[in-house]
């Protein structure tokens, strides 16, 4: 093939314009790098390939972190959400999470506009088939059309496209997503670099025609009356919301599935990739939990003007005729029509243990991976990694210090540490239970954890910074108010409003707030000064006062591990030469190349004894 250069040289090239790619490209450009975002299809920017929703437990947390760092996802869902619900309102402040249904088309369109309008960022269509490198550094990418694009850093966000193989029943064909071609060539190029490439599987349910469903048989689920936005920049969201519905499978549905089980690609053994435990197909559920006679499914509208409905929990690789047959056994679905059949898809991913905690590959400087190429699933997981990879690709191309986040700084830190430390055995999804410091990684304090970090990188606009400082100022004022203002027995009105009959002595608002039955809104009704603070500041005050004891204990736990987290293991350390380590441990350390002692201690099979040996070894080599 005849090759030609493109002429323009970029600082950063991002391959793939999904949720990871868009954040990566925007971050790089916003930091000040001339950036190219290359995608196979300009019409599918920030496409929601699976369910039309953003957020949920731990995922909502990730979106808040992306937002605090100056990313786009929170703003995008705030602008295009059609139903908002906050989950777990009664289960504790750290496990409350925002979730929203998106208008799929609007979500994609808005993100495309933002990308198109971003200064320093070019959005182009092109299929990358090879990587260019000069020595141990990436130099650019080559497209199928024979064009070479040069850059100092490259971020790969390939989604499910690399060697994508779609399974519908026992039929299979190449494709990166329904109706879109796969990307061939790139994973061979990665293998050529010495990277280990693996195979994963995921799946999606059929999309159903809303017109053909009898919603009167289904339970309706509406959005929250007062919407709490995702972004710290959004004041309020006031717009009509759409409803979701809850449907159920039944014994007949399960019977249809069992009778046709041999037609499922999953059960016929034609799929080699590993699927996620947390997202089993309906045939998986029916076969693994035979005692369960019914499974629920949320029917999620794909958009305000779309007739497509997404039935969650019913992903499948059964043939379309069987899909139709089992849907029609369900209440409300007797006349249902399938608009797009569900399918399973296998795709290549690159073992993320080959990455640094900056998401840069260890084999090639300047080459970064984010999203499903790292074996993760989920838009939010992808976006968060994309943001980090974009930041570090920019930093690397500008020869600046990379950013790594600790497990105590955010779910993003937890996720990346897990990815680069633990072998990927299934698509990785974020759960709050993965965080040992859950209490301090809340949605509400994501700005406190990360806005300063984003500001230093140049990702946080003046407006966002001003807002953040304003909130912090109010929190400080609020704390003073709580400590200084008291309710006295003579304040008849306040005593009555707070239910403090029989109050003997004056009592400060702070002490009152510690009582389980009193919340900050009640206090605001008796304190005009408090009532003058923003809702965000009040929420912050309430959590930090009410749960002070627990938060302190959690912070102490962080401190206990800090020492190990701060001990840096030199790059290229010769673990094979440390004979006191077992061969299993030596092998693992060599493979994972942990950056800190803390990371080393989290590698499965690396015992406390091995950590002690490493400590001795480090001390010894430091003293010569």
């Amino acid at each position: 093939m005849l090759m030609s250069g493109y002429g323009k040289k970029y600082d950063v090239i991002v391959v793939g314009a999904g949720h990871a790619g868009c954040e990566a490209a925007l971050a790089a450009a916003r930091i000040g790098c001339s950036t190219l975002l290359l995608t196979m299809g300009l019409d599918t920017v920030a496409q929601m390939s699976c369910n039309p929703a953003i957020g949920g437990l731990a995922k909502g947390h990730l979106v808040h972190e992306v937002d605090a760092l100056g990313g786009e996802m929170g703003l995008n869902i705030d602008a295009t959400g059609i139903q908002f619900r906050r989950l777990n309102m009664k289960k504790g402040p750290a496990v409350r999470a925002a979730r929203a249904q998106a208008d799929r088309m609007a979500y994609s369109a808005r993100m495309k506009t933002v990308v198109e309008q971003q200064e320093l960022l070019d959005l182009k269509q092109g299929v990358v088939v090879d990587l260019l490198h000069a020595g141990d550094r990436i130099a650019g990418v080559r497209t199928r059309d024979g064009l070479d694009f040069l850059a100092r850093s490259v971020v790969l966000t390939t989604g499910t496209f690399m060697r994508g193989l779609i399974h519908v029943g026992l039929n299979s064909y190449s494709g990166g997503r329904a109706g879109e071609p796969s990307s061939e060539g790139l994973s061979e190029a990665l293998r050529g670099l010495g990277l280990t490439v693996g195979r994963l599987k995921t799946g999606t349910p059929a999309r159903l025609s809303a017109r053909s469903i009898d919603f009167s048989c289904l339970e309706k689920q509406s959005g929250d009356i007062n919407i709490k936005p995702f972004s710290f920049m959004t004041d309020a969201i006031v717009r009509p919301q759409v409803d979701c519905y809850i449907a159920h499978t039944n014994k007949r549905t399960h019977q249809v599935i069992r009778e046709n089980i041999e037609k499922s690609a999953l059960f016929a053994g034609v799929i080699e990739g590993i699927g996620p435990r947390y997202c089993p197909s309906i045939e998986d559920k029916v076969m693994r939990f035979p005692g369960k006679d019914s499974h629920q499914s949320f029917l999620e509208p794909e958009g305000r003007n779309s007739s497509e409905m997404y039935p969650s929990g019913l992903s499948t690789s059964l043939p379309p005729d069987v899909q139709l047959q089992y849907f029609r056994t369900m209440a409300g679905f007797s006349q249902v029509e399938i608009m797009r059949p569900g399918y399973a898809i296998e795709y290549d991913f690159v073992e993320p243990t080959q990455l640094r905690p900056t998401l840069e590959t260890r084999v090639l400087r300047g080459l970064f991976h984010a999203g499903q190429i790292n074996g993760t699933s989920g838009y939010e997981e992808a976006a968060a990694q994309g943001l980090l990879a974009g930041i570090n690709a920019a930093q690397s191309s500008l020869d600046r210090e990379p950013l790594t986040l600790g497990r105590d700084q955010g779910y993003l830190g937890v996720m990346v540490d897990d990815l680069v430390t633990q072998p990927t055995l299934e698509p990785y999804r974020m759960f709050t239970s993965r965080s040992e410091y859950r209490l301090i990684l809340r949605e509400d304090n994501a700005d406190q954890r990360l806005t300063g970090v984003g500001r230093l990188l140049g990702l946080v606009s003046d407006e966002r910074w001003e807002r953040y400082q304003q909130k912090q100022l109010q929190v400080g004022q609020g704390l003073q108010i709580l400590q200084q203002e008291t309710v006295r027995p003579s304040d008849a009105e306040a005593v009555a409003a707070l239910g403090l009959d029989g109050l003997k002595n004056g009592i400060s608002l702070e002490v009152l707030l510690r009582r389980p039955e009193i919340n900050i809104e009640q206090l605001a009704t008796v304190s005009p000064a408090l009532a003058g603070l923003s809702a965000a500041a009040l929420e912050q005050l309430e959590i930090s006062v009410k749960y002070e004891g627990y938060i302190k204990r959690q912070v102490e736990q962080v401190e206990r591990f800090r020492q190990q987290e701060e001990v840096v293991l030199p790059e290229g350390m010769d673990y094979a030469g440390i004979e006191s380590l077992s061969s299993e441990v030596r092998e693992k350390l060599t493979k994972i190349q942990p950056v800190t002692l803390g990371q080393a201690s989290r590698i499965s099979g690396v015992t406390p004894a091995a950590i002690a040996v490493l400590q001795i070894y480090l001390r010894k080599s430091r003293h010569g």
Partner: protein
Amino acid sequence: MVRISGPQSLSALQKYFRPTSRTKTYLSHQLYHGLLLDEQGQHVDEVMAVYMAAPHTYTRDDVVEIHCHGSQQVVKSILNLYLCYGLRLAQAGEFTYRAFVNGRLDLGQAEAVASLIHAKTDSSRKLALAQVEGLLSRTLFDVTESLRHTQVLLEAWIDFPEEELPKEDLHHIQQVMAQVSKEIVEITDTYSAGRVLSEGASILLVGRPNVGKSSLLNALLGEERAIVTDVPGTTRDLLEEGVTISGVPVRLVDSAGLRESMDPVEAEGIRRAKQKIQQADLVLFLVDGSSEVGEQDLYAYDACQQAPAFLVRTKLDLPQIADTSFCPYTEYPVSTKVGLGLSELRSAIAEFLLGSYLPSSETVLLTEQRHYDALISAGRCLARFIESLALGLPLEFLVFELREALHLLGQISGETTSDDVLEGIFSSFCVGK
């Protein structure tokens, strides 16, 4: 044997060791006979000592070894001497660790080091479980499983709020936690008995001169005598005898030196006596039943006031005139001469030391301080869990206590990783979008 390692070893030896031959310089790897004297020049023990110069030593540092008499009390005194001097106790495996740091170990030994250090930092499931044998290990496993199961449920409720999960039955969880809490208390309650059975208890005989301490000591040694470590020496403070009383290993300590210490003008003597008394698991306070209670008896009583103690009224075979109403301790009248009251005293001692634990019964026995500490802390977490639940605190705070309890138990029986919890969720419940 007491071993000292480090550059200060030789000066530490010279500080207290008086060689029999008037040696000025110590030859490396040469054995010297002599006396170990404390700061006041008091005889601590007659010992053999060897100085070994670096690097031809186990640790490759300078090493001194002091070979002393085997009694625990002697070893304790020597250790005390050096702790006061400024040395510190070696941690488990530290000599080997030093050897490793100094590059002495070869490949084969290096493997052993890892497991030794392991024993020190210790949280490997396998090794830790090997230390906790049989019933205890099974009981701890059950406790951990109950907590894990509860955590799986709570984490599922948190992470999968929109899934079909078992109903949030906090009442049931409260019952489970209360049960586990009770089990933990049952285990920790065995610790004092466990420690006594594995390490032995020390019983100090206190009383004025001629009250009958030696007779009682001999009587208690009697036919149940198992091991006798008679430490000779007329200047020795304490006379220590090992014996088993109703199956409980006991060190009986007759405070020969305390006789003089009871002299009211000797404040220092009183102080030392009190110190000994504090270290004892049980004090037998002897009063001569055949004579009036005197000033010396009251001084002796003063000295043991804070300690767990029995009152032993001696010489029951003679007319009883002592009025012991000043002393609140449970009284055990004995006559060593005619053998009266001794078996009652023995069972009372055993019962006191073991509490409700019966050596023959099939119950768990906790012997390790570390395990005890972990279980006590875990128990506190569960108590807070139950309290928080009663207060209606949100789920995540319950999980916070549970995670900490599991982390503490993990130090004995292996960590619970977040992936264990997820695995528990996915295998127990059908979740997934």
